[in-house]
């Protein structure tokens, strides 16, 4: 059966290849540091489960020292020229979309197959099925693209390294924030925040309680970069005791809309790296280093309006149904 561990081995080999090619690229602006950085990520993928908690902690420390103290550069491995690309696009036309579409289709198809067919259950592990299917889709698509396009053998690694470099340290941010969330949970940061909020804001009317809950969800999500981290904290502090307990709101409505208020926070924060920083890097926006880059600014009006809509919806729906 294919499990996440197999995907980690594949990822480890990919990052190792990025590292080696970076080391052998004399024109890379931060050749050695970038090579070490990706080698450490490869080590985490290949050997993470044998390193133990402290071993992994030291690994993270090393990653932060190599990639967090000074900026990492972006490698520019040789690739095709614009003319070659236009020429290839004119010749190959819409077939070019096929390998790109295989990946999401394989992810969806694999997930469905693993749930509903015997062969699928035998092939793909039932935990994190979609991610495993996504990995398989990438591999399948890579083989097809290689057989069809016949580029130099190292081209996929070189092109992958170019894209990975443009994402840079942001690739690690979601994982780091999730780990910070685990530390916060162990230290009961959530409980303390809850006490503070309830002491500071007089939640004397349903509207105040709803507004405090929704704004608290958005604000804490902005800090943590993830509505999943904010939800248990804010719901235990304000949502359940006040909106539901004191004023009689419907818990399903309160939670469903509260989570979506948190998503509005996700749209506004650079901490949500995989949604807001990674695309800015991938799309090579000139302001990608700014705290509020173009992606966040484009989202801001929608996020603010929807946050207001969520407060209104919760106020008008939760006490009625």
């Amino acid at each position, binding site marked *: 059966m294919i499990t996440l561990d197999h995907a980690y081995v594949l990822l480890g080999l990919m990052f190792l290849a990025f590292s080696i090619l970076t080391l052998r690229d004399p024109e890379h602006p931060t050749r050695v540091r970038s090579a070490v950085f990706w080698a450490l990520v490869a080590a985490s993928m290949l050997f993470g489960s044998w390193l133990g908690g402290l071993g992994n902690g030291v690994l*993270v420390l090393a990653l932060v020292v190599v990639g967090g103290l000074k900026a990492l550069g972006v490698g520019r491995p040789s690739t095709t020229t614009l003319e*070659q690309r236009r020429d290839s696009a004119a010749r190959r036309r819409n077939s070019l979309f096929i390998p790109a579409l295989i990946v999401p289709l394989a992810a969806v198809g694999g997930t469905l197959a693993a749930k509903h067919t015997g062969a699928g259950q035998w092939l793909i592990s039932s935990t994190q099925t979609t991610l495993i299917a996504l990995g398989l889709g990438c591999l399948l698509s890579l083989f097809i693209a290689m057989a069809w396009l016949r580029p130099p053998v190292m081209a996929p690694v070189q092109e992958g390294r170019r894209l990975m470099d443009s994402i840079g340290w942001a*690739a690690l941010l979601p994982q780091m924030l999730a780990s910070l969330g685990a530390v916060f949970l162990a230290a009961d940061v959530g409980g303390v925040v809850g006490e503070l909020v309830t002491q500071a804001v007089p939640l004397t009317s349903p509207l105040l309680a709803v507004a405090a809950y929704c704004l608290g969800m958005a604000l804490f999500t902005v800090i*943590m970069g993830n509505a999943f981290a904010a939800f248990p904290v804010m719901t235990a502090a304000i949502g359940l005791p006040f909106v539901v307990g004191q004023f009689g709101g419907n818990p399903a409505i309160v939670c*469903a809309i509260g989570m979506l208020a948190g998503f509005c926070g996700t749209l506004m924060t650079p901490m949500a790296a995989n949604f*807001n920083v990674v695309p800015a890097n991938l*799309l090579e926006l000139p302001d990608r280093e700014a705290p509020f880059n173009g*992606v966040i600014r484009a989202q801001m009006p929608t996020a603010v309006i929807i946050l207001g809509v969520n407060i209104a*919806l919760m106020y008008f729906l939760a006490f009625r149904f």
Partner: protein
Amino acid sequence: MLVLLGIAVVVVGFVARINPLLVILVAAIVTGVTAALEPGVEVRELVQAAVATLAAFGEAFNDNRYFHITWLILPVIGLLERAGLQERARTLIAQVRAATAGRLLLSYLVVRQATSALGLTSLGGHPQMVRPLVAPMAEGAAEVQAGGNLPDRVRFRIRSMSAATDNIGLFFGEDIFIAIGSIVLMVGFLEQAGIIVEPLQLSVWAIPTAIAAFVVHGVRLLLFDREIRRGLAARDAETGR
């Protein structure tokens, strides 16, 4: 109270624009150490607390490696870009006469939100869809409008809006699907609090916000074409055309 220093470190680190990886690790250690802080505690015990926190952080780090699986697509996308994928996406959309950047993104919003609501969240995404296809198509449509190259300001604004549209479609679609992570989290959380709700009850109440998000962002996208036209007119005025 003191454990909140960890949050303060995150906020200050962000305001001071220090690298977030560094800030997060420091915030974690500060949180672990302040949690162990009490009257009469010895320095040695605080050092132990710091080491224990680093170990807890490392363990969580290892448990959360699955975030990286998405990057497996990068070699494929790079390979296809090398063969002209972005260029083809542009040409294709330029052939559709009625296409404008705003209308194209509006159709993408419909597809992204609808497929997310059916649980097909992996159909979109920034490395898979936005960079290779959606952004080049939106730029291509605007290039037809402009009759040539786009000014940088307009080009990057279109790219930003493409990424924003993917996020908004995903966020306000996925919660309608009953088996998504956030719904599972809510059901589990309420169960611990002694409240039993069905996933369907939660997902139904995500629909009003989903409709509102579609209307708000959809209107913004239709107005977006006007913004692009203004951007082009400003460029033409500058160059004296």
